[in-house]
């Protein structure tokens, strides 16, 4: 059928796929029906397919497909609209003009032409880069900002395919060309890849039909992105030096993850950093950073970079403000030679402070003690300097300065100030040494000096004459000289002085040794009762000067009031400690303590009123007596003083030695008068006699008992000065007995010296005469209850006491008249008022309970001045 008027339908099929050749078999009229369908190709007489419905239902139509053409590949589907011949597995040879003849029962035959084209899909596109390297991977990396130049080549295809580039779903390049070798090519040039192209699909599509999905090749853009932001988190206003900080830096936008580095100034910090990946192109770096003082003002930089993209680095900087403890350096003034500072020089120190924030305090220390501004003492603190005017050797030592700010305190190095000075005696008091004739004493003269003393000389002073001791008698070493001294006659007793010398000069005040003839030991001191129980007690004393000979210690326990000797104890060596037990409850005792050497006994120490569950009445009576006695004594003293005031003024002008001699009897005189006049019990006061010892030597007012006959009589208590060499300038002689030396080491000497001084303070004043009269009327600041006794068992005890009022006494600077009045008035009122009696008693009771009951006759005398 070559009739050109037949309708022609153009149909395509894809190679190897199924194709459908349409043929409308619907009759034009309702009552009509299909009869037969015949399919022809080209001019072939034989139908390639027939569909025979004659005498059948459509569904049961007889089908036949020619093996010459489609064979089993074809099936006529009459039920679809239009009906169609489905052909599987299309081959190239299937292409051509087909005719479908539809015979109807009543209507004219319908002939339809179908021009069937076979489409051969193209090969899969291949993508090359500009250097013709195949981009086989699905994901291709590009750096942000770069350009894309790709070539898509497609081989084959019938008809030739359209080769198109898509970015995601948009066409970006449709310009392709077909080459004579049968390939179709599309060159893509796409500039400036950006962040928005990440994961974009770049696709080359080769298409020559709509019947099948086109062949394509996809390249997913893996865009390397520059970091967009970098931030150091939590930039603190300041950081503290040497404190560890974990500093975080976050960067975002980079892909792959940014490489974060830390820089201090221009230096890369390779220290402990930890890097973390976070979602969304974020990365975090934590540096464990300990700022140092030097970092103050420097910049800490966090740098984020995409290593794949050159010049992609961005930075965040943090100017570090580092706070730190002051760094303090101390130097002695630069103009000073630290090795040549003598007493009296002016010196200064400079304290250099490096600090952030500024210090709020600067302090100076000398051997750990803070110094304060004191112009009078020559200590001047200025900005960063310490000036010391006229340094004394006491200012030698280690100096430091300290500055404090909110970060803490910084203490400087210490600078040692060495003050050079002439030798001074290491012991600032006289030593008292007793010696028998021909007994050799070893005197040790120790001096402090800077530099140490190089040489020594010794002098002997007696009766105002000073003679140089030959150098053969002494040996010297650094800072120390020893002298072996053997008195052979009475003239050899006196004062020995030792003088050291160094580069600075000769010692100003010598070390003084009083060498006295050996005599009776001094009384025990500071005796105290302790651990008293129902029938026992413990007594402890400190031994006194041994008189220059070995001493022993005796204790006598006497029951009162019967005065019966109950115990007699002795000790050959210190410490002086006695224990007494098996005493009778309900009894009262008196304890008498002595020291003794070959020259005799010391003055006794009497401790009265030791009662074991006894009655206290006696004690009360006794104490009342004592109080009244004291008051009377003081009144008398005041009266006497007035009489003697004019006398003292003249005596003051006398040389020291003379003053000493005259003043001592004053004390004795006062004491004796007091005892004689006012003892309410009518007991004779032996103290009058004791004072006589002194008076014998030089007191014009005091006549006394014969002086020397009492050496072996323990009942006679001679004045202590009897055996002492006359004083020169030192106020108190330092005596040493073996046990005292021991005590010295144990620290007991301190107590001993304290007691001595208490007495000396007043006696010195009176002796030297260089002080005002006020000293004569000062009460001793002592709470002791003192006793003195003349005799042994037979004598009733005679006591003198110091009123507690002495505590209230003003110091030496108080004017005499007012003090006198006050003292007298107070005592007077006590005497006249019964009410006040109990007050006194109770006051005394307070003292009685105290275990310290110590006295010496010497002390009593002085206290009563």
């Amino acid at each position, binding site marked *: *059928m070559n*009739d050109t008027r037949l309708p022609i339908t153009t149909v395509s099929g894809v190679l190897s796929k199924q194709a459908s050749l349409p043929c409308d078999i619907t009759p034009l009229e309702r009552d009509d029906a299909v009869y037969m369908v015949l399919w022809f190709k*080209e*001019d072939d*007489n*034989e*139908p390639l397919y027939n569909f025979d419905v*004659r005498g059948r239902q459509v569904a049961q139509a007889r089908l036949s497909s020619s093996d010459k053409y489609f064979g089993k590949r074809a099936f006529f589907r009459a039920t679809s609209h239009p009906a169609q011949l489905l052909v599987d597995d299309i081959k190239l040879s299937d292409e051509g003009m087909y005719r479908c003849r539809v015979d109807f029962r009543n209507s*004219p035959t319908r002939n339809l032409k179908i021009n069937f084209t076979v489409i051969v899909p193209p090969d899969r596109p291949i993508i090359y880069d500009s250097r013709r390297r195949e981009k086989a991977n699905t994901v291709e990396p590009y750096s942000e900002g770069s350009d894309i130049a790709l070539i898509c080549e497609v081989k084959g295809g019938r008809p030739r395919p359209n080769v198109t580039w898509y970015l995601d779903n948009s066409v970006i390049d449709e310009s392709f060309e077909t080459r004579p070798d049968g390939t179709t090519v599309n060159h893509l040039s796409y500039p400036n890849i950006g962040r928005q192209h990440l994961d974009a699909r770049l696709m080359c599509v080769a298409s020559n039909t709509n019947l099948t999905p086109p062949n394509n090749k996809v390249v997913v853009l893996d865009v390397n992105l520059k970091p967009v932001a970098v931030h150091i988190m939590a930039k603190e206003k300041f950081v503290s030096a040497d404190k560890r900080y974990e500093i975080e830096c976050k960067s975002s936008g980079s892909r792959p993850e940014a490489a974060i580095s830390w820089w201090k100034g221009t230096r890369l910090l390779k220290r402990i950093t930890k890097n973390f990946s976070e979602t969304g192109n974020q990365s975090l770096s934590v540096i464990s950073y300990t700022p140092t003082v030097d970092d103050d003002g420097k910049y800490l930089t966090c740098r984020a970079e995409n290593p794949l993209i050159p010049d992609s680095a961005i930075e965040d900087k943090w100017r570090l403000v580092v706070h730190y403890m002051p760094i303090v350096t101390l130097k002695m003034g630069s103009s000073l030679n630290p090795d040549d500072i003598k007493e009296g020089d002016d010196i200064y120190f400079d304290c250099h402070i490096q600090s952030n924030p500024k210090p709020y305090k600067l302090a100076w220390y000398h051997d750990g003690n803070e110094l304060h501004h004191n112009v009078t003492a020559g200590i001047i603190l200025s900005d960063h300097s310490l000036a010391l005017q006229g340094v004394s050797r006491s200012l030698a030592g280690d100096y430091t300065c300290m500055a404090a700010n909110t970060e803490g305190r910084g203490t400087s190095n210490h600078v040692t100030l060495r003050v050079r000075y002439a030798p001074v005696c290491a012991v600032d008091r006289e030593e008292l040494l007793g010696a028998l004739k021909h007994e050799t004493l070893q005197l040790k003269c120790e001096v402090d000096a800077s530099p140490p003393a190089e040489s020594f000389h010794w002098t002997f002073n007696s009766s105002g004459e000073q003679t140089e001791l030959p150098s053969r008698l002494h040996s010297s070493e650094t800072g120390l000289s020893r002298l072996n001294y053997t008195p052979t006659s009475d003239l050899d007793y006196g004062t020995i002085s030792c003088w050291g010398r160094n580069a600075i000069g000769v010692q100003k005040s010598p070390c003084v040794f009083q060498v006295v003839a050996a005599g009776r030991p001094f009384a025990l001191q500071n005796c105290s009762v302790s651990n008293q129980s129902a029938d026992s007690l413990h007594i402890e004393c400190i031994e006194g000067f041994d008189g220059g000979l070995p001493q022993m210690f005796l204790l006598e326990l006497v029951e009162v009031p019967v005065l019966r000797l109950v115990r007699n104890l002795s000790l050959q060596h210190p410490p002086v400690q006695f224990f007494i037990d098996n005493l009778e409850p309900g009894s009262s005792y008196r304890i008498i303590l002595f020291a003794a050497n070959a020259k005799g006994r010391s003055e006794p120490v009497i401790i009265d009123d030791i009662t074991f569950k006894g009655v206290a009445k006696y004690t009360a009576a006794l104490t009342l007596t004592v109080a009244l006695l004291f008051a009377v004594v003081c009144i008398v003293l005041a009266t006497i003083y007035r009489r003697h005031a004019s006398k003292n003024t003249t005596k003051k002008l006398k040389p020291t030695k003379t003053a000493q001699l005259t003043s001592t009897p004053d004390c004795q005189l006062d004491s004796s008068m007091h005892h004689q006049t006012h003892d309410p019990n009518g007991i004779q006061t032996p103290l009058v006699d004791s004072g006589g010892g002194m008076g014998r030597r030089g007191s014009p007012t005091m006549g006394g008992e014969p002086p020397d006959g009492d050496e072996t009589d323990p009942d006679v208590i001679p004045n202590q000065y009897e055996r002492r060499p006359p004083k020169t300038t030192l106020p108190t002689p330092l005596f040493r007995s073996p046990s005292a030396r021991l005590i010295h080491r144990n620290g007991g000497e301190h107590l001993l010296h304290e007691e001595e001084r208490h007495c000396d303070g007043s006696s010195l004043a009176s002796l030297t005469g260089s002080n005002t009269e006020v000293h004569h009327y000062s009460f001793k600041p002592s709470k002791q209850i003192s006793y003195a006794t003349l005799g042994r068992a037979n004598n009733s005890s005679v006591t003198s006491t110091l009123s507690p009022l002495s505590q209230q006494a003003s110091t030496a600077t108080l004017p005499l008249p007012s003090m006198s009045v006050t003292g007298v008035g107070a005592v007077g009122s006590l005497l006249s008022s019964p009410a006040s009696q109990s007050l006194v008693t109770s006051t005394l009771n307070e003292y009685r309970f105290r275990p310290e009951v110590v006295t010496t006759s010497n002390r009593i005398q002085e206290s009563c001045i």
Partner: protein
Amino acid sequence: MSGICLRLDFVHCITLTEVRVPKHTIRGHAVKLECHYDMEGEALYSVKWYKDGREFYRFVPRDDPPGSVFPQPGIAVDLANSTSEQVILDPLDLSSSGKYRCEVSAEAPSFQTVSDHGEMMVVVLPDQDPYITGGRPRYQVGDSVKINCTSGRSKPAVQLTWYINGDPAEPSLVKKYEPIITGADRLETSVLGLEFRVKQKHFKHGDMKLKCLAMISTVYWKSNEESVEGEKLQKAPTLESRRVASADSRADRVQGNYFHCELFWEINFTHLHFSLKQLGSREL
């Protein structure tokens, strides 16, 4: 024409031996279309006749009656006289012109199908002979000749040709006009002009013969001739008398021509031109 049959199995190829369709037919006449085939032992399924691709007659043996007609313009089937091998159209109309195809199909299972076709044109002959207008009785050398030849109304249009002294006029002397269509049946009238200046050579033996030939394909053939005397000649022939005489004879011949053609068709419908040649030789 028909497809090549390459079947090699036991079933033979059916062949279409002849499809006879007259090339020209006269309006109002009948025509017989013939289709001859050799089934080679196969059963006949159908014979279908198409005009311009549209089926108008079918002969299916299994149908009762086996012949059926599908009307369409220009087709009037004489069903009673139509069979499996012929179909009669009567009468013919101008719209009966077209391509006629006969398609023969064998029964199952092969359903081999062969077809062939022929073109048929329906003709309306001119209602009058061609005539010449504008001529003068005498021409002298140097005179200008300007004449027209006009045909009678026909379908398709008549083809006119000028001859001078028996030779076809040079194309430069001929002036062509579009056919004139007139009437409800839209028949066409052809006009052809001839213009030239008279020269000595146009006279042969003192005469100049001008002839107009009208023809429609091979079915119509008529001419008209004028003879003109030169100036030297005393007697002047009249064109009218001669024209009429020749016109009659020509008309007869044309009629006879048609008859001859019909005969030729019966012998060999493909060699129609042969008889036309014979006619031409007779005319001159």
